[in-house]
């Protein structure tokens, strides 16, 4: 398949791995964070870790939108879903995220009308087909997904649909990165920047990382060669004592982003003063809510929600995993009490979560090393 096969070429992969080897300084340990869960998934799926020298460590960042949703928001969603006449819609993986008393999937089993959708447009279609029901879409995701929700809300407004609303839990990528960089227990040498988030926001929002924190950023695609090349580009910057934002994913990411997407987001959303991230706590101006112009389509205003903050389970170390302080297998419950079938923490839920990715692809390689 075009745009895919040429970025999975094994011979080229070995050549880039050789280039990486030539760029590392012996005795120096490199810690690079891949911000995005999609990268984490690809790294484990294709065994990219195995192609890197032992002193180049990839640390998994907070870029999985499922993994960062706190339990209290799941509880709020479930409370809406249990209301009479409500059809609650969400993306598939969100259904399995544990709240304080079960997941949306458990609520569905208990009788709530909860439906999986592939896009906000699907939720809008359900609203048109069920004019006597209230249809709520649980919107999650970074700037990649937010424009899709925004366009759907505009469409709902134009078409005069009154039985559709959105529970907005969209988040933005820059504030958690800044919070991570301010974190005293984390030392990073560079960042693999999120590819498709950058399709929307462009490369400019990441310029603060080299400017304020002196760390290189390389925006990368999701195929194995993309990630390997991004690692090589970061190492080359470090070797040449350069520090800037580079774009490895130029075939998709324009430096300025998608201006139409940014415009529609600015019209439909506004920043929340604070938003809670699982494991990272409250981060200022990191979440989106509906703007005044669209407030009547805000599910949280239309339905009363508990809005209670729920602490993460004590055994769960998703916070440390999300900050890259520990590796997934270093969590006390990894692979024992917490598995993709019965997740305790959100990092084990989505296939982009560091724990699930490692559980599904990486643990066998580690077992081999132990033996």
């Amino acid at each position, binding site marked *: *398949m*075009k*745009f*895919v096969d040429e970025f999975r070429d094994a011979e080229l992969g070995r050549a880039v791995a050789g280039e990486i080897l030539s760029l590392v300084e012996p005795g120096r340990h490199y810690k690079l964070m891949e911000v*995005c*869960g*999609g*990268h984490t*998934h690809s790294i484990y*799926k294709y065994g990219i870790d195995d192609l890197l020298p032992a002193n180049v460590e990839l640390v998994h960042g907070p*870029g*999985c*939108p*499922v993994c960062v949703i706190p339990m209290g928001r799941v509880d709020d969603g479930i409370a809406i879903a249990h209301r009479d006449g409500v059809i609650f819609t969400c*993306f*598939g*993986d*969100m*259904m*399995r995220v544990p709240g304080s008393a079960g997941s949306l999937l458990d609520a569905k089993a208990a009788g709530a009308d909860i439906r*999986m959708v*592939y*896009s*906000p*447009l*699907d939720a809008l279609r359900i609203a048109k087909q069920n004019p006597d029901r209230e249809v709520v879409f649980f919107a*999650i*995701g*970074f*700037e*990649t*997904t937010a*424009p*899709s929700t925004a*366009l*759907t809300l505009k469409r709902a407004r134009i078409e005069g649909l009154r039985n559709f609303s959105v529970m907005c839990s969209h988040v933005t*990528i820059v504030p958690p990165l800044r919070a991570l960089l301010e974190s005293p227990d984390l030392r990073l040498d560079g960042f693999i920047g*999120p*590819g*498709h*988030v950058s*399709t*929307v926001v462009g490369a400019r929002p990441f310029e603060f990382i080299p400017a304020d924190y002196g760390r290189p950023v390389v925006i990368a695609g*999701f195929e194995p060669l993309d990630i390997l090349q991004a690692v090589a580009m970061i190492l080359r910057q470090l070797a040449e004592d350069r520090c800037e934002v580079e774009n490895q994913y130029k*075939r*998709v990411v*324009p430096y300025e982003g*998608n201006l*139409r*997407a940014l415009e*529609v987001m600015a019209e439909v959303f506004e920043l929340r003063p604070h938003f809670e991230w699982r494991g990272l706590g409250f981060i200022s101006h990191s979440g989106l809510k509906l703007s005044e112009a669209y407030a009547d389509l805000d599910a949280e205003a239309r339905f009363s929600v508990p809005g209670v903050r729920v602490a993460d389970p004590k055994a769960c170390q998703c916070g440390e995993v999300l900050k890259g302080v520990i590796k997934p297998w270093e969590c006390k419950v990894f692979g024992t009490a917490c598995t*993709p*079938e019965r997740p305790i923490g959100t990092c084990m*839920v*989505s*296939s*982009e*979560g560091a724990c*699930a990715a490692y559980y*599904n692809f990486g643990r066998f390689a580690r077992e081999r090393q132990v033996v």
Partner: protein
Amino acid sequence: MTGADTCGSHHCITCGDDGVPLQVVRIDEVRGLALCTHEDGTRETVETALVDAVAPGDVLLVHAGTALTRLEHTP
């Protein structure tokens, strides 16, 4: 059940960074939508408001039902 099983793809569609190249089959100019096809032949309606005018045969990078960029254009 893994996330991938749930979503029917390698990546979870929930992920902010899931993007799929789809080929345009037909355009609904009035509603700003395009009927697109996956490599396996399954079809999906895609919002095209964020990209320049699309034509049948174009390849779009689609996330959560919305085209984010045009990968290939048929003039």
